[in-house]
């Protein structure tokens, strides 16, 4: 398993986490969060960051016991072959569906903002071609590209600073905490979805060079970065638009940038979205990679599996999607994600404690 040529450094892990977590969620996050949390949405994202951090610690505890196994191998190790494989099916389905959902939302945004008439399946083919092209190569190359793509996120961060010159109203978020604890938590629930992607750690851990120490620090840094990044954007949007305005905006971040005008450039939002295509694609790449990894195939068959999964995701995007279907799809995928990302790893950790199982012990 620990082949030299597919290992990544902790440094690359940091960027891998950032790239798989940022993406589609960000653009619509302020809208989603304010539905329940209103002006306190930024607190929700912060709490979501804390929740992710707790999960990361659980992952860390679990992975420390099985430093050379990936998620789908750990399930088999703890639960036995049959039950493990059964669970792995759900894990696989989760990644495929999340990948499919991400692609559908991607196509929707492109259709809405950049190419209103171009049929969705063409965009789907293009984007999946690019994703498959990268995913089919080994992990090192994916990591290289993700590090490269992170420079774009910094560029976008810079773009967002430009929007400080548009009118701001701090009254929108005051008084702090007015939405009530329950609503803030509901907002957290929504923003957690945008932060998904950190479960990639479960599959990357065996490939990290020198994975005994320092990994928790790296992933915590990545999480802090993401949480701060998201909170910053949500905060920025919340003080720019009132709740009523936000409720009518599908992608408030883009609307925020739409207000900026320069002598040379009029629609900063279009340029922002064009560049944002790359972080959105890296999320899809991450899910395609995770789905392919979760099938536990050997190295020779891996490219075939990536092609197959790419085709499955493409087929998912072909399903006619209006808003109602997407919402429904989103709801079920969310349930599945909660199970795969939060519940199963926690259960596995508890079980491995109870049965005192770790990697060196005999498999059941």
């Amino acid at each position, binding site marked *: 398993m620990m082949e030299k040529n597919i290992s990544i*450094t902790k440094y690359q892990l940091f960027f891998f986490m950032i790239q798989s977590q940022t993406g589609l969620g960000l653009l619509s996050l302020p809208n989603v969060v304010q539905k329940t949390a209103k002006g306190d949405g930024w607190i929700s994202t912060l709490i979501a960051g804390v929740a992710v951090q707790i999960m990361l610690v659980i992952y860390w505890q679990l992975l420390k016991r099985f430093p050379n196994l990936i998620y789908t191998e750990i399930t088999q190790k703890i639960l036995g072959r049959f039950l493990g494989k059964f669970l792995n099916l759900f894990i696989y389905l989760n990644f495929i569906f999340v990948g499919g959902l991400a692609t559908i939302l991607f196509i929707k945004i492109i259709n809405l903002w*950049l*190419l209103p008439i171009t049929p969705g399946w063409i965009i789907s083919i293009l984007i999946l071609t690019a994703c498959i092209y990268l995913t089919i190569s080994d992990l090192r190359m994916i990591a*290289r590209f993700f590090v490269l793509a992170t420079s774009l996120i910094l560029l976008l961060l810079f773009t967002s600073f430009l929007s400080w010159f548009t009118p701001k109203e701090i009254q929108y978020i005051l008084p702090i905490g007015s939405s009530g604890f329950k609503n803030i938590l509901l907002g957290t629930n929504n923003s957690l979805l945008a932060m998904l992607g950190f479960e990639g750690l479960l599959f990357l851990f065996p490939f990290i060079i020198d994975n005994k120490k320092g990994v928790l620090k790296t992933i915590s840094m990545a999480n802090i970065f993401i949480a701060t990044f998201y909170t910053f954007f949500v905060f920025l949007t919340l003080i720019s638009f009132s709740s009523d305005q936000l409720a009518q905006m599908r992608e408030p971040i883009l609307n925020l940038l739409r207000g900026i005008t320069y*002598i040379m*450039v009029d629609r900063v939002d279009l340029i922002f979205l064009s560049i944002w295509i790359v972080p959105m694609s890296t999320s899809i790449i991450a899910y395609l990679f995770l789905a392919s990894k979760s099938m536990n195939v050997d190295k020779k068959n891996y490219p075939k599996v990536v092609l197959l999964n790419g085709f499955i995701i493409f087929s998912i995007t072909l399903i006619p999607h209006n808003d109602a279907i997407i919402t429904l799809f989103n709801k079920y995928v969310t349930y599945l994600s909660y199970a795969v990302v939060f519940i199963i790893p926690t259960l596995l950790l508890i079980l491995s404690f109870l049965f005192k199982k770790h990697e060196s012990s005999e498999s059941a």
Partner: protein
Amino acid sequence: MSFFKKKSSLSSTSNDGGQLCEDIEKNIRMLEEHFCHTEDLMKKELQFHNRKCVIIYLDSLVKKELLQASIIEPILEGKMSEIEKTVHAAEIKKTSIISEAGKNLLDRSCVILLEKDPQAYVASVGGIEERAIQEPNNERSIKSSHDGFIESFSSNLQLLRKRLKSPQLKVKYFTIGNFSNTKVGMLYLENLANKELVEEVERRLSSIEIDQLYSTGELEEVIEDHPFSPFPQILATERPDRAVSYITEGKITIIVDGNPRVLVVPITFFAFYQAPDDYNSRWLVGSFFRLIRVFSFIIAISLPAIYIAIVSFHSEVLPIGILYSIRVSLEYVPFPPLAEAIAMQIILELLKEASIRLPSPIAQTIGIVGGLVIGTAVVDAHIVSNMMIVVIGFTAIASFVAPINEMGTSARLLGFPTMLAASLFGFFGIVFVLMLIFMHLSKLDSFGTPYFSPLAPFKKEDVKDSLIRLPLWKLNTRPTDAKPEYANQQGRIRAWKKK
């Protein structure tokens, strides 16, 4: 001497393994047969201490004066009793194998055969006219040295040895090509270059089965990792200073006899955007120019595409003032922007191709025709818009900025798919193609080194002398992309400042 072994049966003649015998007439006959009775194989009979002595050489390859002065005259004088001591040659070899003697004859030597002696004595009397060392035309510099490689192997080696007077500079010879028997040498610093890299280059060079190898370009295609990639993965340079600087980074240079271009492996993308002048300018200036050059790569690929996307899809990106002037220039042009752009790019390539090989007075005419007729008249005739001329002109200049020409051409070539995607899908198409290009760059390897290093994978310590150039006293470690055995390259070089 593993590289002398025959790699295929393509060129083996009947008496390959033939041995010389004591009968001198038979020996001569065998050599003549080995050379298929070619008529420029000359024989000169002499007497050496009352023994018959025959000097055989290829008329076309030896210097007659040298042959006369250092071989024939001493033999006639016959001061010493042994032939090795008589002949004035720096090196005299003995062989008893026909093919070996034949090889030496082709390598500008003469063969001396003696009566009742089964050995052939080989002495070098070669002399081939060489071009003088001059500044390479395609890699000119303002502030760096002005000598360049030429077509002779030994001169090229000399140019490198002159700069690196170190016993660690090691040369390994290969003979490639069953007919051409081209001499190929790989040079590296013994204790610095990575052992695995040296082995890998050796393995690739010694496994080539080919009949003729003329140029470095051919060798490049034979040993590169990804033949289908649009990017050059081996750097070919005519500048000795450039080649030497790579050798000191632990890289390997390959010299092909008869070629003024020397190959450097492994290489990274950013090496193609470095120039020796960067080190002779102030570091701020050098860094600035490096950034400008990398920027030119992006411009060369995407500028026409961005223009096409804005004009045909996203005109709302531009404020009304600029949009108005673009629209006015497009008003009477009947073609879609893609057709305009591709036509102009092709015209540009044609102009360039036409002027390359013409003698310079005629090439000037091409410049006038290109500048006036194509530039102005095409706009006046409303075939191409003014704005498109500006865009294409800017793109062309950007692509010519690359210090190594191949990279600029690759960038210009990649501009075409980008333009096509832009005309089909607007900004999305551009980002799609650029994303594919950068994914490809992250996937490329050159002799086991990531091609897009130090950006992918990101290496902080290598950025200081690739994307930018920090002052010399900051460059304490050499670039690590060739995985040198040790990284340190200097101590405190501004030690005088310490009191």
